[in-house]
């Protein structure tokens, strides 16, 4: 009976589910993996620095279907 009034209008719970799914997916992307990223960067920097001068380290988490990978870029310091 009430469906008559709701005809064509989405129930609010299903709107909530859709909005949440998208918001949480983008939250998870934005935090980009792990809060220990900074510690990891510092350690990688220390290791490489033993052999060659380093200007900076960049780490990104990349997700492609089922495959998750860490892309690590180490920028060298030519002057060191």
């Amino acid at each position: 009976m009430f469906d008559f009034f709701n005809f064509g209008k989405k129930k609010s719970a299903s709107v909530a589910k859709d909005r949440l799914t998208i918001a949480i997916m983008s939250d998870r992307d934005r935090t980009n993996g792990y809060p220990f990223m900074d510690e990891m960067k510092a350690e990688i920097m220390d290791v490489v620095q033993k052999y060659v001068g380093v200007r900076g380290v960049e780490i990104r988490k990349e997700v492609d279907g089922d495959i998750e990978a860490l892309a690590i870029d180490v920028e060298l310091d030519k002057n060191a």
Partner: protein
Amino acid sequence: MGIVIAVISGKGGVGKTTATANLGLGIALNGKKCVVVDFDIGQRNLDMILGLENRVVYDMVQVMDGEANIKQALIKSKASPNLHFLAASQTKDKSVLNSQKVEKLITDLKEKFDFVILDSPAGIESGFEHTIEFADAAIIVVNPEVSSIRDADRAIGILDSKSAKVKNGEEVLKWLIINRIVADMVEGGEMLRSDDILEILDIKLIGKIPEDKGVIEASNQGKPIILDKKSIAGQAYARISGRLCGQKIDMKNVEISDSGLFKKIAGIFR
């Protein structure tokens, strides 16, 4: 050696402290030795819910700093001799916590109790991180509502990266409690269903708690609702406590209202 369970939520006001008090008491009523610890430094609340606010002499920060020993600071519940309580500091702020002190306190408590339940502060700041760092398991409390669920997901993310167990390559157990379910609204499509919440958060359910006005009345009196055998929320907490103690208790569907159930039964005879 006891199990350490952190009760977390992300968002505040979803019933974390109420859950801690009731599960702690429920576990104690099952015959297990249990301690509940208020980790919400500066915003002590668990004492009120347990009705023990007048008995607090020493708090957990004083224990960590060696100003009091654990025995002096532990307060025995009036409702069960198996339940003990350790208060948060009301005067200090959460910057007094550090990992070494927290680990020492938790190690000591684990030796004395079967269950060590930590009531986390809201948010995902340092106080929260200290609560989850040495936990074996976490109970995540959410309301069927978008902001609570989103914040819970963030809290779970931090749990998965900052927990000492995870860093050691082990798994930290995670259980979800959905609190304040209004069956009529779920039936009307106006409130998220538990299945949807589980799908979004991707964790295991340990219990569903229906909305119950008695919860406020219980906190007014400092008597956890689990003591009220007729209360629907109290019964839900009793079921979850049983599950935590290893009993096999079927999940009750609290998302069907009595009238809805009646309609369904009536439908059979139509």
